[in-house]
């Protein structure tokens, strides 16, 4: 960080927006750096382990207006049994659903150890009053959500009302109780890396357990450069406070190869401590089957077809 000034926390003292001291990001440099992670060669056993790790980091997601109990139950089954024909593969990390589906998912997942994540706070736009968002969050937690994926108020953020954004995150964090809070920045609506960095800093200082790129409803969603900016924010925050924050890129990561590039980036930016589903997640739906296809390819030496992997 450019400075360790406590001003960053001082949003209440003089009424001025804080976080103006977040470091500026060199966009060209970040993009170059991110592209370099794609050049690493991962083969054989390491690839197989990497693929299994990816599978184990997935938040299997369905966030559609047309979600039904049946659909969510089917997805939960897929989460627990990604591909029964393959022995020794892990389950995914969590199921990510709307609050109205949390109870169904909780029940379907039983004691499988798979977490239930719920989006909340008027996902995906976040355009609702704070008390509605808090009730939304509490509802999800009471229904049994282990994790809450909130969206920040991008409108307020662009208006420079950083304190509002900060306070809102802090209030949601409080409403979460024991549930872990993932804060979605919706980077596709923030525009610049400078703003992504600032929003990351706000979220982490306000109590986020995870920061997450996107809702998946806006393009561009997760990209490697934007994830790198957030990973570096996490690293700086860790050096400063000693507190680990998780990272979740979401939307647009559908191929194993790309997912492995992300793991390389995490390892080389934050280190091995982050290489587990406690601290790193992929928000994705079609990634799981691609990973399974690649695992079978590694095991059999034969390129696979989508027809052999169940769609749920």
């Amino acid at each position, binding site marked *: 960080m450019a400075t360790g000034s406590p001003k960053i926390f001082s949003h209440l003292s003089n009424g001025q927006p804080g976080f103006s001291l977040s470091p500026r990001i060199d966009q060209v440099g970040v993009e170059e750096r991110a592209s370099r992670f794609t050049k690493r060669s991962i083969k054989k056993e390491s690839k197989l382990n990497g693929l299994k790790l990816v599978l184990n980091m997935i938040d299997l997601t369905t966030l559609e207006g*047309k979600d*039904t109990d*049946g*659909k969510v*139950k*089917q*997805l939960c*089954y*897929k989460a627990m*049994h*990604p*591909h*029964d*024909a393959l022995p020794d593969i892990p389950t995914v990390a969590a199921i990510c659903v709307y609050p109205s589906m949390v109870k169904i998912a909780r029940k*379907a997942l039983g004691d499988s150890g798979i977490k239930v994540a719920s989006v909340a706070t008027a996902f995906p736009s976040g355009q609702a009053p704070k008390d509605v968002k808090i009730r939304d969050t509490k509802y999800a937690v009471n229904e049994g959500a282990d994790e809450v994926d909130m969206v920040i108020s991008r409108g307020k953020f662009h208006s420079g009302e950083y304190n509002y954004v900060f306070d809102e995150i802090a209030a949601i964090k409080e409403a979460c109780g024991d549930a872990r809070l993932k804060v979605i920045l919706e980077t596709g609506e923030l525009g610049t890396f400078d703003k992504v960095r600032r929003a990351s800093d706000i979220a982490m200082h306000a109590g986020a357990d995870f920061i997450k790129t996107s809702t998946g409803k806006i393009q561009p969603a997760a990209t490697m450069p934007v994830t790198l900016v957030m990973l570096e924010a996490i690293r700086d925050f860790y050096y400063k406070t000693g507190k680990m924050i998780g990272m979740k890129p979401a939307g647009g990561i559908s191929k194993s190869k790309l997912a492995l590039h992300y793991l390389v980036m995490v390892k080389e930016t934050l280190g091995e401590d982050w290489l587990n589903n406690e601290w790193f997640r992929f928000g994705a739906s079609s990634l799981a089957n691609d990973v399974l296809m690649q695992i079978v390819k590694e095991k059999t030496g034969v390129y696979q*077809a*989508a*027809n*052999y*992997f*169940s*769609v*749920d």
Partner: protein
Amino acid sequence: MDKNTDIGAINSRAQLATIHKYLEIGRKEGAEMYESSCPLPGKGFWCRPTLFTNVAQSNRIAQEEIFGPVLAILTFRTDDEVIEKANNSPYGLSAGVWTDKGSKIFNMTKRMRAGVVWANTFNKFDPSSPFGGYKESGKRRGITWVECVFEFGLNLLNLLNILNLLNERDGQINKKVFSHHK
């Protein structure tokens, strides 16, 4: 067989055991099982007609073929979804669609990747109607069956395909209007 028979006995003890294995798997997988309450004859290999609901595409009872009087019921929301699920299989022997509207039926049957599609009917056969599958269920139609036997020996799967082939050839369109290369 008695003309009043809807469902007969299972053909062997081994197959009955396989079916029971799948019923057990289905239950363990959390699907809801419904079984006819009909009495079973004491002698022979019998299995009650059985339905499973609350089944996901990834359930084994949906992925694997049971070969018994067992139906796994999966639900869908939209036409696209049901087509995607129906085609999400390496096999493609036959399919069925039940719906109301003519134009919708033919839209469905057109998009299904299966060799035989029954619309508002099921399991119909006729000597004049071709029978054979797509994908793994329809390997190598069009070669002579002799060639096929020599090539694949006694591989059972292929033997099944040869049988299909014979059936097909009986019903296959045979317009030799054009000279062929074979």
